[in-house]
């Protein structure tokens, strides 16, 4: 059974929030005593997904939860926006594909940096990406 030992929410309204978001994720990963490589991976994934929520979703929120399971702890991050949603999820999950000016590595790259990745999107209503990294 998974229990949540702490949680919180941060706004993603501008570029500065991306910086604040990854700094907060770094602190939590440090508190969970993630290895330096694992810290860097979850922070980098957070940066990519926060930027996506801001640029493509028109801003949103980052929710974080510290998870406890028997024998392991983890950090779950949820990026939620009320933007246009993703019409073609399969295409969006292709390396190098972008609807904007980016490199098209945000979603696919972030997925490679975490243990669990969930994408929930509705056209016209928004996108929610949930990622978890376990220690």
């Amino acid at each position, binding site marked *: 059974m998974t229990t949540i030992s702490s949680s919180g929410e941060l706004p993603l309204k501008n570029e500065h929030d*991306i910086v604040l978001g990854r700094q907060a994720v770094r602190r939590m990963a440090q508190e969970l005593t993630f290895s330096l490589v694992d810290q860097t991976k979850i922070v980098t994934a957070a940066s990519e997904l926060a930027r996506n929520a801001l640029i493509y979703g028109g801003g949103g929120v980052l929710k974080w939860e510290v998870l406890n399971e028997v024998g392991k702890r983890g950090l779950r991050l949820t990026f939620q926006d009320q933007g246009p949603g993703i019409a073609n999820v399969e295409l969006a999950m292709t390396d190098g594909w972008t609807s904007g000016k980016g*490199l098209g590595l945000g979603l696919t790259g972030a997925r490679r940096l975490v243990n669990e990745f969930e994408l929930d999107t509705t056209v016209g209503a928004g996108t929610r990406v949930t990622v978890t990294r376990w220690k």
Partner: protein
Amino acid sequence: MERIPILRMGEFLLVTIQVDMHDQLALILQDDLTRAIEKQGAKGVLIDISALTMVDSFIGRMISDISGMARILDAKTVVVGMQPAVAITLVELGLSLTGVATALNVERGMQLLRRALTDSHDDDFIKR
């Protein structure tokens, strides 16, 4: 406005990134650096990222773009000091910074730039 300083060392420019950059700051640096190359006729650019604890696709692309722009302006770019955890993450993310010269530290980066400069002087000499 917040800016990342660009230091001149002879024919080279030295940039040490010591802050967690927001996207706009990265773009300003790109602008400032290309302008400095042109204005000072710099032959090499050394970018020290040893203080960066994270390089995402945006910063990675900025580094790549600076290297490409500098090359067109006849300057060589060397990126030095990337932390191992950052290198591991960057490659897993899908970015391998193809075409960007790298060195382990500032000293080796300077050696690389000096060698590149000597080679290009030799070429000039042969052409004459």
